[in-house]
């Protein structure tokens, strides 16, 4: 908008009033505050405000009330205040205070207060509540919400579908649709018998009523205190403390048994506190400044664990650890020095200790820790050292330059130990671990399914240098160019072998930007940045650091590609064969030679038991974790700003980002996004304004994987051999001989988010003789998520059983399908108005309308009758229309 600075024609008749401040200044004692001209006082004296009223919400909705405290139908109180006092104007001795309260009638209330004598001291107080409503549709049969022990009601019947399995747990038995569906019995679709139906009906009649709603929400209550003490014009001391209590429940997936993956989502109790402290002393001189500061954060969790009854096996309980209490203390110093008016150096350094020493859970359940613990607590320690240095200068009139260096060392000094554990509620395998002898244990002490793991203490060291120059080419036109070099070293303290996928990554980034006032009312900028990140040697065997038994000689190992591991450790075997991982090598194709032999016909990977793990913990060769992978990055930014008239202006912008992980065969391969922004503002007059914005964002990423199978000589399924459709292999034998190289098992995904967001706002004041002001906002957001999947999987034909007709298909190749589009649309209308009754009184009204419609397949799996091995929660995708209306009275005073 254009400005008009020319208003210097002061009428003599009003000059005396306008000179009030002159007079006040020269003879301040002559004027008491109440003698000040009301117009002057209106500007120089603070106005306090108290607003009180009542509002009404017409419908329950946790999502609508996610953060605004309006989650429940019914009336609520409106109470806001802004009260200020102290000495202002000519009586000002510097003492001022204020109390500001927002949403005091809701569970999102916020109250702050300060009192001080400026130039001497100030003290601050604050109280804030942050409520997050997570779900009001979550259901669970578990009892004990609010505590940390969850049990099932005494009459709970473990669900099953007897026509499928007479004794097996099956949560699909909670729905009549799936619980009473026909099952295949010797290849024939067979309805359940009357007895089976009675069992299912009894389960439904008993268990379904046991599902109760639990509102999932968390609430933070913050108490703030602070002070500022000005020692003298050169020195200032500041301090603050924040205590936060966080309580409530959040959903937590819990696996009762990993073997069959029985899982239940529990209302995880949250009862935590965090105390944060800041203390600093700052010196400010004419050419230099200096600050020494302390920051402390102490987190305490009052819930150490959560225990629950296994819905699959009521005789068992399981226990989950909660986040451990921890502390972080940092001391830092910052100094700056002006060599001359345009050359400045700022140096900063800090050292911090992060510790965690919560006692480990010792209540061993289900023989989960057969050898006990190597230590009773972690004694975790992370020492972080940081150093920053930045030099800025203007060597020429139109040239600004900057050079900086950053060092950030997160040194994890946590002790490393070996832990022996069974997976979640998994029974010990009958077979013995190959490592009992190597560990000096009696034979058969540990089962073959034992996990023998070392913890990994990840450390990270950053070195970064930046150079930047900004040159003004001409008036209103400049070029900015910068270069950054970043090197990140990663390692693990005490690891027996290199634990990091990428020990060192180096990234070079160059950026250039052109800014210009193209014509008088049109300005713009465009920039381009390119980054290239390289990994010196990507280590596909980093996972070995987790399993120290890979370096031990086991006994009784299984034959692997003709070699018995009993004669060498897993690591030795790998090294001898020049392998870079345990999985199939990416990109290999017959004939298999060299390293690929292990993946040739009938070649098996090393059983995980031979490195002391219950799972194959390796990744596919060719998998690159994206945060450490080779990457090329392009970024383009552009923006135009057009001041069309004094009253009308437009802005438009575009961003484009593209990441390519060209050397990643599997994992994230590329990510790109772009956004378009358009905005207009119109100030028709002093009392009428409007604005509009629209943003479109498109985010896309592509990932690849390989669901390789096992190689075998198995040639049929119940005597049948054909696969339908024939995509890669036509027979069971051909497929099984090539299970590790089957191209049909390669898969890829293409995930894409598209989001439109628009908003319109109108403000009108000065109505009804200046007494009425109105405002309105409308916003609309439409977001879609599409996940495209290429590939497929094999499924044996359940009709392929002995006695089936000749020619029965043995297995189907099921082509992948794209996921259904996830769509969420949100429309919000907000209206407000205020009518000024008199100088100190006003009445106001607000109206809010919000409608959200959500279609999301992820909720399908939470319903009765969808999963065999996880407990439904019956949560619903957010769909609501909520209206809120409120009226209030505002009293202003001075």
């Amino acid at each position, binding site marked *: 908008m254009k400005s008009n600075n020319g208003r210097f024609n002061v009428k003599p008749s009003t000059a005396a009033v306008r000179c009030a401040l002159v007079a006040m200044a020269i003879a301040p004692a002559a004027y008491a505050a109440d003698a000040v001209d009301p117009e002057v006082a209106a500007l120089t004296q603070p106005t306090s405000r108290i607003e009180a009223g009542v509002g009404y919400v017409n419908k329950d909705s946790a999502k609508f009330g996610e953060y605004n405290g309006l989650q429940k139908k019914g009336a609520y109180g409106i109470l806001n205040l802004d009260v200020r006092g102290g000495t202002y104007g000519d009586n000002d001795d510097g003492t001022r205070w204020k109390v500001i309260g927002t949403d005091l009638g809701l569970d999102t209330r916020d109250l702050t207060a300060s009192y001080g004598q400026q130039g001497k001291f100030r003290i601050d107080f604050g109280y804030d509540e942050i409520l997050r409503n997570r779900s009001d549709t979550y259901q669970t049969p578990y009892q004990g919400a609010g505590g940390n022990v969850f049990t099932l009601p005494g009459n709970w019947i473990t669900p099953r579908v007897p026509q499928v399995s007479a004794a097996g747990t099956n949560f699909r038995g909670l729905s009549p649709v799936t619980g009473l569906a026909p099952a295949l019995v010797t290849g024939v679709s067979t309805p359940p018998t009357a007895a089976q139906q009675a069992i299912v009906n009894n389960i439904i009649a008993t268990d379904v009523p046991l599902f109760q709603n639990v509102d999932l929400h968390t609430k933070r209550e913050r108490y703030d205190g602070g002070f500022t003490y000005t020692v003298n014009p050169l020195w200032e001391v500041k301090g603050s403390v924040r205590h936060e209590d966080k309580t409530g429940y959040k959903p937590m997936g819990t696996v009762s048994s990993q073997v069959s993956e029985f899982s239940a989502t529990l209302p995880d109790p949250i009862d935590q506190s965090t105390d944060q402290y800041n203390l600093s002393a700052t010196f400010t001189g004419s050419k230099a400044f200096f600050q020494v500061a302390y920051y402390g954060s102490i987190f305490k969790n009052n819930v150490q664990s959560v225990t629950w009854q296994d819905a699959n096996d009521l005789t068992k309980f399981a226990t989950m650890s909660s986040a451990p209490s921890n502390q972080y203390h940092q001391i830092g110093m910052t100094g700056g020095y002006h060599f001359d008016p345009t050359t400045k150096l700022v140096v900063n350094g800090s050292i911090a200790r992060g510790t965690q020493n919560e006692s480990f859970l010792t209540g061993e359940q289900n023989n989960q820790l057969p050898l006990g613990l190597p230590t009773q607590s972690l004694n975790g320690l992370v020492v972080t050292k940081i150093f920053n240095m930045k030099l800025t200068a203007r060597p020429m009139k139109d040239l600004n330059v900057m050079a900086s260096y950053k060092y950030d060392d997160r040194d994890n000094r946590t002790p490393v130990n070996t832990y022996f554990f069974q997976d979640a509620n998994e029974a010990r395998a009958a077979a013995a671990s190959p490592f009992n002898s190597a560990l000096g244990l009696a034979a058969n002490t540990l089962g073959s399914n034992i996990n023998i793991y070392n913890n990994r203490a990840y450390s990270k060291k950053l070195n970064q240098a930046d150079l930047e120059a900004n040159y003004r080419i001409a008036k209103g036109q400049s070029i900015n160019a910068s270069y950054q070099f970043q090197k990140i070293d990663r390692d693990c303290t005490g690891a027996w072998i290199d634990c990091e996928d990428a020990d060192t990554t180096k990234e070079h980034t160059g950026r250039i930007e052109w800014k210009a006032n193209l014509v008088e009312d049109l300005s713009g900028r465009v920039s381009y940045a390119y980054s290239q990140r390289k990994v010196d040697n990507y280590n596909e065997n980093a996972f070995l650091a987790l399993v120290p038994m890979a370096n031990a000689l086991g006994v009784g190992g299984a034959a692997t590609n003709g070699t018995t591991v009993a004669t060498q450790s897993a690591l030795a075997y790998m090294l001898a064969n020049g392998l870079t991982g345990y999985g199939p090598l990416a990109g290999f194709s017959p004939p298999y030679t060299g390293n690929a032999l292990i993946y040739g016909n009938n070649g098996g990977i090393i059983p995980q038991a031979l490195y002391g793990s219950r799972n194959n913990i390796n990744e596919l060769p060719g998998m690159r974790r994206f945060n450490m992978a080779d990457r090329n990055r392009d970024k383009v930014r552009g923006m135009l700003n057009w001041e069309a008239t004094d009253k009308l202006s437009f802005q438009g912008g575009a961003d484009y980002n593209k990441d390519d992980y060209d050397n990643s065969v599997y994992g994230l391969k590329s990510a790109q996004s772009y956004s378009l922004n358009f905005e207009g503002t119109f100030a028709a007059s002093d009392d009428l304004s409007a604005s509009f914005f629209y943003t479109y964002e498109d985010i896309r990423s592509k990932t690849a994987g390989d669901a390789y199978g096992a190689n075998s000589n198995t040639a049929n399924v119940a005597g049948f051999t054909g696969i339908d459709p024939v995509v890669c292999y036509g027979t069971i034998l051909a497929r099984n001989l090539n299970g590790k190289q089957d191209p049909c098992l390669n898969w890829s995904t293409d995930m894409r988010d598209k989001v439109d967001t628009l908003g319109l706002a109108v403000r009108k004041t000065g109505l009804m003789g200046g007494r009425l002001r109105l405002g309105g906002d409308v916003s609309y957001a439409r977001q879609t998520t599409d996940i495209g999947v290429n590939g497929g999987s094999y499924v044996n034909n359940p009709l392929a059983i002995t006695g089936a007709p000749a020619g029965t298909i043995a297995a189907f190749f099921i082509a992948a*399908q794209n996921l259904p589009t996830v769509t969420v649309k949100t429309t919000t209308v907000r209206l407000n108005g205020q009518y000024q009754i008199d100088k100190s009184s006003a009445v106001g009204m607000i109206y809010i309308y919000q409608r959200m419609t959500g279609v999301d397949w992820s909720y399908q799996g939470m319903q009765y009758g969808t999963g065999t091995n996880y407990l439904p929660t019956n949560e619903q995708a957010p769909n609501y229309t909520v209206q809120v209306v409120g009226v209030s009275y505002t009293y202003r005073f001075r």
Partner: protein
Amino acid sequence: MLGAICAASALLAGAVSGEARAAEPASTRSSVQQDGLAQDAKCTVCHNEAWRKPVLSIYQTPHGNRADSRAPLCTSCHGQSENHQKDPGGARPEVVFATDSKHVSPTDARNGACLNCHETGKRMHWSGSKHQSEDLACASCHTVHAPQDKVLAKATQPEVCFTCHKTERAQTHRISHHPILEGKVVCSDCHNPHGSTGPKLLVKDSVNDTCYTCHAEKRGPFLWEHAPVTDDCTNCHTPHGSTNSPLLKARAPWLCQECHSGDHSKNIYSGANLPGGNVTTINGNQGLANQSPPAQLSARACMNCHVLVHGSNHPAGAKFQR
């Protein structure tokens, strides 16, 4: 004429001041205060309560607190501007802050006026910071004369930031977002727009240290650490808003599969595995009670079991299940 009237007013005030001063406690007015107001008066004589912008409201702010000897005069920021005093309609003040003015001063001049006093505290790292190199002026965001600076109030701060950060504004409207529009988390909770030692102008030295100021339970160190968590929270999360709750960059299980390809994480998860998908209805016509979508594609996906993805302190929690 105007000058004469003002001078007369001043003289008159001076004439009566002796009586008033005698009745007033000496502590209520300092010489600093008097001097400040007197010196401001040469500006406020014209830029007074009738001025088209409420410049006098600066006296409600710390800048106008004349009891503080550090508080600036009008000329501290706008320059002595003697030519402007002599010829108000012709010459401009030495430093013009209004960005909508044709005569706005160069950014360095405007910021210099502020940094004279505000170089320390949260502005220690201003020089060479992103906003400085983008030629932003303090007045681009701050309204110094206003009794309540919008950018300093939680409820209105995002409006100021969104003036430039429009994509971030749109992201706050997504189904999963920090409560920014609701005024419970504001930009300055995470960012220091005046420059910092962290990336993206974050208030702490790193992304993680910034996140831990509110999410300290994820700080650890844990017995079993999840490498991408200790590396950078934004490996998985996007802070301003996401289509995937909770603020995830992509949906599980595919987000997890960007890094994991062993054991069951190597498997393909597609629409064919959903309830009603092809795998559960082989041949398209067999309703099979013993077929079920995999847990990894249902409900909370991988987090149905591996829920402690931020780290576990359970001796048997290496797989983040305990």
